[in-house]
Structures are given as C-alpha cells and as structure tokens.
C-alpha cells in the first residue's frame, strides 16, 4: 500500500551546497500494519513523509501510495491519504466544525456524503460540546480531536502520523495512540514517524531507523533488538544510529 524504492531528496542551501535530506530510503508498508519511521530530529523522516504525500518531489527513486505513483499521480495520492502532526495548527478564527467542513470540501466531499461523514466523525470523536467554538478557544486535547477528525473525514486508506504526540500531555497522548491502534484494526495502512521509542514498541509492526537520510536498520522491533544484541529497543536504536557516549 505504501512503497518506496531508493527515494532520494537533495536540497540546495543558501550557499549553493547540496544537502542530502533523504538518501536512498526504501520502505514497504501493508494494509492493517503500522510502519514506524524512527530517527532523531533532522534524520529525514519528515522529508520522506513529504515526498510520500507529494508535497515535495523526489530527486530520484520511486514511490507509490495506495497504488498511485507519487510522481505521476500526485492528486490521487493526496486524495488517498490523511496526514496528522502535533505541530500542525488549526485555523484559529474558524470553529472546529468549519475547519472539518473546509477540509471535507477540499477532499471533494459534498452534499449528503459530506454531512454523513461529518456526523460520523463528530460522534466518533465526541466533538458535540465544542465543535462550534473557535479553534483558538479550544484546549490542546480538543484541538487534537478536531485534527484527527480532519484527518479521517474523507476515510483515506493510508494515514501518515508525523510525531503526532509531540508536546501533548499524557492523557491526550494516550487518546491519539489509541486512535492509531483503532485505525490499524480498520485495515488502514499507517506510517508513524516518531523519535519516542516506547511509542514505536507499542504500535509498530515494522520499523525503519533513519539517520542522516539513510536507512540504517529495518525490520520488526524484535529483529532489530536481536541484530544489535540489546534487550532494550532504545539501546538498539542508539546503536543503529551510531551513538557513542554523547556523540552520534
């Protein structure tokens, strides 16, 4: 359902130097599976997700999402994914319902179909009490529920979560993780980007550890532990990224 083959993304910085953000990433995620992209900040996780969601064009390599080529069928790819990130804000001067409706219309929903999906997400995420309040006035947890509603409104087969719990309190964080687990049971293909190893251990069926834009380990959590000889996945991760006592 989500497949990449040797995906590369190079940027040019202000001085004209080439920056290798992603350098040959290959992953394969299947329906009903949570695929973890693990790495420290700046490892290339977000750039990979951005190429998969067609916001950035790969410098080389190929990729497909929900059967659509990320270079040739960008519009169909975008219609097939839901994207959520903790750093993604909502429109402060719109109500939660207005934000949800706006994105529904952008995803091409209208009429009965749109109203039906709005009723579904409102019920599922229990938005009734605050859906008509301006997003600026919502608590962090309420905002996160609106964000989730926006992400799943068009019922996409593929979901991307880019560090979805960063900066959230423990209760809101728990609700987000439970939602991701539920989406897996519904047969969605999920790409989950994080640097929190406990979350990866809890959720991910397969992971790819990215460092410096390169995949330095992939497989199940248990496979990576065995490969590095560590009982703790955090230690296994640190070994894979080349951590040596204060330095990477």
């Amino acid at each position, binding site marked *: 359902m989500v497949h990449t083959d040797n995906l590369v993304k190079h940027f040019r910085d202000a001085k004209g130097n080439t920056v290798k953000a992603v350098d040959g990433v290959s992953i394969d995620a299947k329906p009903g599976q949570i695929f973890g992209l693990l790495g420290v900040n700046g490892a290339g996780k977000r750039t990979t997700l*951005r190429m998969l*969601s067609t*916001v*950035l064009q790969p410098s080389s390599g190929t990729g497909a999402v929900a059967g659509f080529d990320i270079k040739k069928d960008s*519009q169909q790819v975008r219609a097939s994914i839901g*994207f959520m*990130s903790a750093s993604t804000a909502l429109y402060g*001067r*719109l109500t939660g319902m207005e934000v949800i409706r706006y994105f529904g219309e952008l995803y091409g929903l209208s009429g009965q179909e749109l109203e039906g999906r709005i009723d579904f997400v409102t019920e599922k995420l229990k938005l009734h009490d605050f859906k008509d309040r301006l997003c600026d006035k919502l608590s962090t947890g309420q905002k996160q529920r609106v964000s989730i509603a926006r992400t799943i409104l068009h019922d996409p087969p593929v979901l991307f979560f880019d560090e979805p719990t960063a900066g959230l309190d423990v209760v809101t964080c728990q609700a987000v993780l439970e939602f991701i687990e539920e989406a897996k049971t519904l047969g969605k293909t999920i790409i989950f980007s994080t640097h929190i190893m406990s979350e990866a251990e809890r959720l991910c069926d397969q992971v790819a550890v990215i460092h410096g834009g390169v995949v330095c380990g992939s497989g199940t959590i248990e496979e990576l532990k065995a490969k590095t000889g560590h009982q703790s996945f955090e230690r296994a991760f640190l070994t894979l990224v080349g951590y040596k006592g204060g330095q990477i």
Partner: protein
Amino acid sequence: MKSAVGVVLKKELREMLRDKRVRTGAFVMPILIIVMLMGVLGFVVKQVKEPHNTKIYVVASSSPIIEELKKQKLTVITVATLDEGKALLKSGRARVVLEIQSTTAESLPVTQINAYVDPKEQQGQMAFGAVAGVVQAENKKSLQKLFEAKQVPAAAQEPIRLAKKDLQVGSEQNAGEILVSLLPYLIVIWAFYGGMNIAGDLVAGEKEKATLETLLITPAKRTDIVLGKFLALATICLASSFMSVVGLALVAIIKLPGTAELLGKGGGVTPVAAVFILILMIPTAALFASMLIAVSSYAKNAREAQTYMTSMSFLVVLPGIFSQFIGLTEFGTKLWINGIPILNTANNIRNALLGKTEFLPMLITVALSTVLAAIALTITVRLFQREQVLVRV
C-alpha cells in the same frame, strides 16, 4: 474533482472578516481617516473664509482707515507702540501689525501704512491680503471722487476690466477642489494598505503555523488554492479602497461643519464617478493583491512578509502622493501618464471626480493594470507551485 477556488475563497473571507486587524485596518480606518480629514479641512476652510476672525494689530492711531478695516469685519486691536506690536508678532500672538503714519508726498497729504508680517506665516499673509484689499478699495474710491470732480467718463476711469466667470465642467454635482486632490490618493493607497494587514497571514502565516502543509496535502490543485486566496485578498483590497467613498457619504450625511464646499453639491462622488472608480479600481486591487500574495508566498514567515510589504508600500505611496499635485502640472492631461501604473489610476479617478471622463485614457489604464495584475498573478502561481513555498533551506 471540482475546482477548490470557491472553497478557499469562502474560507479565507470568513477568516478575514473575523480578524480584528482586517475590520479595523481595512474598513474602520479608511472611514475614520476621511471623516477626520474632512472635519479638519472643513474647519480650516471655515476659518479662512470668515474675515471677522482675522485680527489686525494697529499701533495707536486716529486714521479713518481703521474704521474702514472694521467695516470689513476685521478685528482691530490697538497696541501702544510699534515695539509692543513687534513683540506680539515674534511671540506668534499677532499675525500682522500696522503702523499708520500721516505724511506728505508731492505737497499732498498721504497715509503711509507699514504692515509688519512674518513672511513664513500663512495666516500673516492672509491678514495682509485682507488689509491690502481694504487699502486698494479706499484708493479706488478716492480716485473715483477725483475723476468725478474732473468729469472723466466711467469707461475712461477703468479702460481694462477683468471679470471671473466660472464655467461648469461636467456636472455641478462634482466634487470640490480639495477633495479632487485628496480622494484619488486615499482610494488608491487604502486598496494596498487594507490588503497588507492580512496578506502576510495568507501564505507566510500558514507556513509559520504549519497549516499550509495540511492544505497542500489535500487533492486541491495549488493553482486553485492560490487563486482562492488571491480573490479573497483582492475583495478586501477593493472593499477597503471604497471605504473612503463610504466615509465621504458619512461626512455628507452628518453634515460636518465647513465640508459642504469640499464635497460639492453631489456629496463628493456622483454615481457616475463611483462607477468609473469601481472600473478603475478592480484591476488595481487585483494588481495589489497579486503583488502582496507573491511576497507572502516567498517569505518564510509573516514577519518577513510584513517587512517586504512595508518596503513595497513606497511603490504605491509615491505615485499616490504625486497624484495629489498633478493638478498643478500639465501632466494630468497627457496620454502618456496613463502608462505609469498606480499614478494612472489615481489620475483617472481625479478626472472622474471632476466629471471629465475620457474613454481612451481609462481604457489604457484599465488594460495596463489588468496586464500587470495578470503578470504578478502568474509569478505568484509559479512561486506557489515551487517546493520552496513550504521548504526554504
């Protein structure tokens, strides 16, 4: 999939109209400023036109000219000495001080009036003008008496006669002179400033808040997204520019003192002039909106966008300022003036307010503004298509 232009337009307008900065900066301020300006100008005009408010300081004298000054509703205040009068002049309390002396010239009695004024002081010049008018009238009267005694015919007394005849150009409902200088400038600059308040948020602000990424991940085409944003901003720019006209209507309704003459008999802007202004301002507002969105798309964040836009505003203000003085030159009547963006719009609005609407200059102006708006919009769409709209390394 159907176009997302309307969806984005509706959302942006809703968000903008809920923004206090837009309501204040684009709607309230243009109205408030024109009302305040008209109020101040009306007050000044009233002061200038009422001669009894002009105070003339005179060094103690029994000359009959003093009675003549009083008859012209000038307020005459006597001071004991010339030094006292000069001190009042220097302190700014007096505008003109007259020293009246009786003397003789060619064996005839002559009244010599020395008028002391500050050459840099406008009110002093006006007070001197009022005194000069009285003196001229008195001289004419005395000359007339002499001619009559000598039985010189009236035609010979004044062989060259000058009469000022006002010819009404356009409708007599057209705006007054001061308004004609001021209004085009205000209409044009508010189209820019009204949009500038919010343009930074439209793209650069969305980058900063990370809402742009979720927007670009939707299947909506980027061209549709940027067109929706552009149309919303152009609507605000146009509405903001028309707030000056709304403000004028308000001035006419509340009848601010002294503003009747400034507005003209039609309350400032005739319906025909309003239609011409609308035709001229639609492409100009589109030009400003596309320029502002281009900057917003290029900038990393709203603050950077605001910095660029502030610099860009001089491109609008300078031709706008020149448009206020174009009536003092011959340029306003030349066809080539319509080839200068922004100034051409202001000049054509000026002509519309004067009731001098010519088809060709307006056509050139509208065509040029439309072409420039299209170029700026194409650049904006290209900027928006680039990855750098989201990621600038």
